[in-house]
């Protein structure tokens, strides 16, 4: 069983993510946060294996929060969940240390697939993101990987 933390400032998105995960017993929601600061604190105390996190949040956004969490906990896998499809944002997400970039519009079908891929050390980018962008981001991150490892 894998433990996952849900971070989104919108309660109904957190509920939606929970509802999707309910039918997958291998995934257990260990906690929820509605802002980046709480997400960092809960990562310390709950030690989740994976985090599903919104990008646009008041205060610390999802990318800044990812950077902070990955500094202290490089083992935690982070999937960012967002409405935005811009190449720049995908690149920033991966540079900050995220392993997954999931669009809210695909979440229902793709959420568990994204989690399964990142937990197995892979990278996930929503199929709606331009293939060339996805390829260049993944290549860049793979080249960087030795730097990130311990």
């Amino acid at each position, binding site marked *: 069983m894998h433990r996952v933390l849900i971070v989104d400032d*919108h309660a*109904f*998105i957190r*509920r*939606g993510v929970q*509802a999707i995960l309910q039918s997958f017993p291998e995934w257990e929601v260990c906690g929820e946060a509605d802002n980046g600061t709480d997400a960092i604190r809960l990562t310390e105390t709950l030690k989740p294996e994976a985090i599903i996190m919104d990008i646009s949040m008041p205060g610390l956004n999802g990318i800044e929060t990812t950077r902070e969490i990955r500094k202290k906990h490089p083992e935690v896998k982070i999937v960012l969940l967002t409405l935005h499809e811009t190449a720049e944002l995908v690149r920033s997400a991966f540079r900050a240390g995220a392993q997954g970039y999931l669009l809210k519009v695909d*979440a*229902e079908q793709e959420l568990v697939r994204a989690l399964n891929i990142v937990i197995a050390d892979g990278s996930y980018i929503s199929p709606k993101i331009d293939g060339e962008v996805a390829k260049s981001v993944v290549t860049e991150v793979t080249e960087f990987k030795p730097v990130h490892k311990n």
Partner: protein
Amino acid sequence: MLAERAVQPQHKMDMRTSTKALQILVADDHDIIRRGLKQLLTSRPGWEVCAEAKTGREAVKLAEQLKPDVVVMDISMPELNGLEASRQIHKLLPKAGILILTLHFSDQLVRDIVEVGARAYIMKSDADRDLVSAVEALANRRTFFTARAADMLLNGFSRPVVGAQPQAISRNRITPREREIVQLLAEGKSSKEVAVALGISVKTAETHRANIMKKLELHSVSELVRYAVKNQIIEA
């Protein structure tokens, strides 16, 4: 159908006192948001989500079929946005309470929401706190507006806003039907696809298109897209 509905007993002052569950239609193009909304809504005893729609057009069709008591509607949806869908639903079912749920706030949006016949408006960021209260208000034939909108309605709705005036005029130059067509064209649909979507002839769709371009003094599709974004008919 409408006349028959008017004499049905569940349409008394407080629908929660009737034995029939409150029927709610949820319209949002994001599956995950509909899931979350459904969970929040059905946690209340006596409330039922009778159907879900992914586009404004689907919402109108389902509302006509199922005659929900309350419609919870996102604004930015493909094919037909939530405002135009609300306008059509309000015409078909004047007694249904329409709740607009959106990420954005603007004074113009509040005006538009009131104008299309919606009686409640909340922000997605406040949905956790406000959704149940807003639906409850609608079920009791009351209105519910997010605090900022309520302030705006009290302070200045009847007063013309200096900056908003030119935009308001340009919006009113085209009819609701024409705005529907603007959205479809701005989404990249051809006249033929517009005709199929609206159940009209290609020739009528082309006439509408020519009228719109002339009225708005637009000369290309990219100008039309810019108009649609500027007037919040589609999102950028």
